[in-house]
């Protein structure tokens, strides 16, 4: 009896403690001891503000209080767990269809510009010479093309790119899992791919969604392998075309050349244009297929793992490139069916046979065994015996991920991102040690960083310069503004020097103040502040009075202090306030601003809009919205006090203090 009745109790206790353990793990298991900010002379509130400035896209009003209440360590643990509900983000992104598509669906829905035209001509939707007459029949031609697109559910590639950029802005602004977003951006930039590469561009949505974000707080080797197998990276750094070098003197090669020549000779005017083109493409493809491409092998070592001084040689790059031959994109995705063998690897009947041949398919990734260099390789002293296949590449990636130079290089990049442009050696050493000990557990490395005094030192405070993206989003967040259309913000971010997802070089944007700050970009930052608060950035709505619960500030100086505190919580604002006080106290000033504002007719202002802004606005429906907003703006402008407040807030956004985090 006794035993029997004890059972449920034991089960219940076990269950409860199990639940407790789970929640404990989610919340605090990562953070075992208090952050050492007190020793560095920071108050808890200052420390919270510092934490928020480094691991979010800017503190929201009241967020410092929240973090203090919750406990800094708990807040950080919650961010590491990255499991806060994202209802708002999901709701805002509901209409962004491309975000839920596969690469194949994206390729089908968003044909490249030239391709779209070709298809429309092929399908008889527009006459071939319509392109020529475009000038004369622009409207008609456009209409036909639009109808064709609508009918086939084709969309412009620009729309895809816009959805990509917009979602980044919305996530950064509204996500509850800020650290995850910040790290997604960090890893994207570390493993950079670019919209400027037209072939790579349409793989970027899935790259960020499936490769980067889910692994941003995970394990380094996992994310490294995932990038290596992603269509975006395979295209961007050319590995998709890298194949075993063919022996130039081989009989096969000679036959191939022979065939090429014959084909070319046969290219008499008798061939149809389409046939001619096919021949040309085949010749080109045949050339492309030969040989090794070292681009990716070099960058995985130099930029993704070991770092430029990581101790590898050119010989190692070539050897690693040979190891990675055959790592390519699954055929058909890119319109780049590589050859019959690879295509056959797809068809179900043959898949067992091709698996035996060593082909490996993983989603959109294909290991094409027939293109793999089966000879022996030696990379940095590690031997890859002859006859290997897919597993060689995995072994190489494992080796690179575990290399001590990688631990240092990744730790150093993280420290540059989160601590200072020139992090101390002692900090990097500690982080690298954790990296090695935990086999590249990114959470643990971050934790070591935040638990180090270097993170909290006076030298690190406000040391980082905000990127244009960070500047824009932190302005929006700290003013509790709503982003109804992110595109104009993206335009401004580009104008300030950060064309999102479009940094051309594989290095990613340099993560240092010197890169972001130059004479031109600094002026753009100041203008951004002024434009934002005077509501000249359509798609961002803000209400300065509501921010302060519609309470009227006692004086201009009081207002200055209140709003500085929203924008720059826990900073020493004496200097800023002192500098700006004469401005707000100038009796003439508010009249000046007021008069000028009321003189500004809406039409005139629209004319003054940047060309791109107008373009953005010109899309249907937006125009009406714009007119309404201009009216609202005028109403607002009639209140001199508000204009003045707006201008002061704009100046704070453009001020040196707000450029720092």
């Amino acid at each position, binding site marked *: 009896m006794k035993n029997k009745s004890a059972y449920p109790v034991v089960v219940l206790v076990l269950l409860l403690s199990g639940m407790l353990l789970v929640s404990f793990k989610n919340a605090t298991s990562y953070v075992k001891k208090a952050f050492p900010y007190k020793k560095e002379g920071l108050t808890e509130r200052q420390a919270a503000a510092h934490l928020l400035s480094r691991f979010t896209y800017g503190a929201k009003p009241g967020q410092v209080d929240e973090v203090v209440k919750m406990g800094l360590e708990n807040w950080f643990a919650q961010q590491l767990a990255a499991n806060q509900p994202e209802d708002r983000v999901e709701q805002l992104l509901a209409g962004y269809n491309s975000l839920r598509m596969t690469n194949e669906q994206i390729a089908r829905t968003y044909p490249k510009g030239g391709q779209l035209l070709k298809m429309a001509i092929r399908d008889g939707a527009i006459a071939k010479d319509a392109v020529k007459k475009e000038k004369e029949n622009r409207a008609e031609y456009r209409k036909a093309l639009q109808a064709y697109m609508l009918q086939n559910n084709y969309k412009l590639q620009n729309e895809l790119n816009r959805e990509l950029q917009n979602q980044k802005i919305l996530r950064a602004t509204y996500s509850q899992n800020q650290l995850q977003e910040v790290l997604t951006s960090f890893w994207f930039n570390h493993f950079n791919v670019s919209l400027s590469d037209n072939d790579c561009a349409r793989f970027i949505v899935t790259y960020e969604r499936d490769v980067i974000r889910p692994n941003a707080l995970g394990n380094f080797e996992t994310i490294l392998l995932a990038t290596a197998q992603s269509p975006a990276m395979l295209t961007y750094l050319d590995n998709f075309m890298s194949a075993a070098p063919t022996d130039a003197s081989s009989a096969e090669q000679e036959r191939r050349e022979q065939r090429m020549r014959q084909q*070319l000779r046969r290219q008499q005017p008798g061939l149809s244009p389409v046939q001619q083109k096919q021949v040309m493409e085949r010749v080109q493809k045949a*050339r492309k297929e030969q040989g090794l491409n070292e681009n990716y092998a070099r960058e995985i070592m130099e930029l993704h793992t070991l770092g430029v001084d990581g101790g590898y040689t050119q010989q190692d790059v070539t050897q690693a490139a040979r190891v990675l031959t055959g790592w390519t994109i699954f055929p058909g995705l890119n319109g780049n069916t590589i050859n019959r063998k690879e295509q056959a690897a797809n068809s179900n009947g043959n898949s067992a046979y091709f698996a035996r041949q060593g082909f490996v398919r993983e989603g959109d990734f294909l290991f094409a065994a027939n293109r793999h260099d089966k000879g022996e390789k030696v990379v940095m002293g590690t031997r890859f015996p002859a006859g290997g296949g897919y597993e060689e590449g995995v072994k190489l990636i494992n080796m690179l991920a575990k290399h001590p130079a990688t631990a240092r290089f990744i730790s150093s990049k993280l420290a540059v991102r989160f601590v200072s442009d020139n992090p101390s050696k002692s900090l990097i050493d500690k982080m690298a040690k954790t990296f090695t000990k935990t086999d590249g557990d990114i959470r643990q490395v971050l934790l070591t960083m935040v638990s180090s005094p270097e993170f909290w030192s006076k030298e690190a405070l406000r040391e980082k310069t905000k990127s244009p993206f960070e500047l824009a989003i932190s302005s929006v967040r700290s003013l509790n503004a709503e982003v109804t259309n992110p595109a104009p913000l993206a335009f401004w971010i580009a*104008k300030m020097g950060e064309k999102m997802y479009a940094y051309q070089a594989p290095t990613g944007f340099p993560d240092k103040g010197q890169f972001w700050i130059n004479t031109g970009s600094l002026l753009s930052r100041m203008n951004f502040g002024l434009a934002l608060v005077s509501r000249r950035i359509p798609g961002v709505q803000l209400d300065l009075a509501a921010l302060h619960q519609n309470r009227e500030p006692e004086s201009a100086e009081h207002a200055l202090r209140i709003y500085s505190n929203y924008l720059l919580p826990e900073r020493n604002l004496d200097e800023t306030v002192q*500098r*700006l006080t004469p401005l707000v106290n100038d009796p003439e000033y508010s009249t000046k*601003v007021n008069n*000028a*504002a009321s003189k500004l007719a809406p039409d005139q202002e629209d004319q003054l809009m940047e060309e791109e802004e107008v373009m953005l606005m010109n899309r249907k429906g937006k125009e009406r919205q714009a007119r309404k907003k201009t009216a609202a703006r005028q109403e607002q402008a009639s209140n001199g006090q508000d204009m003045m407040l707006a201008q002061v807030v704009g100046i704070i956004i453009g001020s*040196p203090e707000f450029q720092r985090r």
Partner: protein
Amino acid sequence: MTSRRGFLKSGALALFAAGLGGVPNFLAQAAGSSKILSPYKKNKVLVTIFQRGAMDGLMAVTPFTDEYLQKARPGLFMSAARSAANPLIDLDGRFGLHPAMEAFAPLFREKRLAIVHGVGSPNKTRSHFDAQDYMEAGTPFRKGTSSGWLNRAVGLLGHEAATPFQAVSLTSSLPKSFYGDHPAVAISNLQEFAIQMRGNARAANAAANSFEDLYDQTSSTLLNRTGKESFEALKMLQKTDVKNYKPANNARYPNSPLGNSLKQIAQLIKMDVGLEVAFAETGGWDTHYNQGTAQGTFARNVTDLSQSVLAFWTDLEAYQDEVTLMTMTEFGRTVKQNGSNGTDHGRGSCMFVLGNDVHGGLVHGQVPTLAIENLEDGRDLPVTTDFRSVFSEVAGRHLQIEQANVLFPDWKGNGIGVMGRV
């Protein structure tokens, strides 16, 4: 740092301050009397134009005596015969300039303009992205190069930037050519180089004063220094009426992106704000469809290119000794026309170099007879001159840069004699 600040304080700015403020047509004055006004050695200026999309060099400068070309391009080939409707402009009995580029003809005859034909990259890629990337980085086999060749050129000038306008790109963002450690700025429109309050000049002024004050006080060296430079630069530009600029000699710039870019480069040169390396770009050269002949897409493009350059050169008459202009494009196009009256991605193209110390009036480089066996990969005008050979010679000679190994790290070739006044 002191030298840089010192120069600004004592030099250019002092000049602006000393009685020139408010001169409505500052440019006209500066243009007329710059040598007297400026006690400093005039800067040499290298102006580069990137033709994105790959210009068909064989149509721009046609080897018109080549029967193979005529056969390969039944719909595109143009004749130089006087009797033809729109004949090519015969340059030397072998090469003919596209008739829409007649603006270039006098420059060529005066031996100011040189053409280099069969120029391109040793890397055979026919991807726009890769080829532009390689050309702008100056390293045809390395994607990871973090700096652009023009940025490295700035580093080799041997003196610090005197002003923020040492290297200016007339683009909305920095081109790869300008990536790197040396200061370079992208400005798409000089008029935007100001604190903007949309028609509210007084409020803008007040805001500018506040900003200047705040940046003057900040503890961040980077923000402090750059802030000062920004406001100095802004004041430099404010002294001139950028908006109502009147080009000299009635030069007429086409109202095109390239025309506007070159016009603004000319303004910067005349303002004497320390410009040494400038970059502009032009698009639309990827002529797969209906390339056209005497009229059409290509003709429109070369009209714009040649008229923009001619206007620039005319406008800068007083500065021509200081300026060299060079065009570049990532590759050429197929010898044979394709099925849609256009051309596909090829290899060699041609480039134009303009300046008073250019070995002009000549088509440099080698263009073989375009028989199939002479073509690269059986289809393209072969690359007979490495682009680095021209770039390093032009930049090296004009800007007096040595150390070609820094400019183009993996390259040991020589120039081809495109520079040197004859």
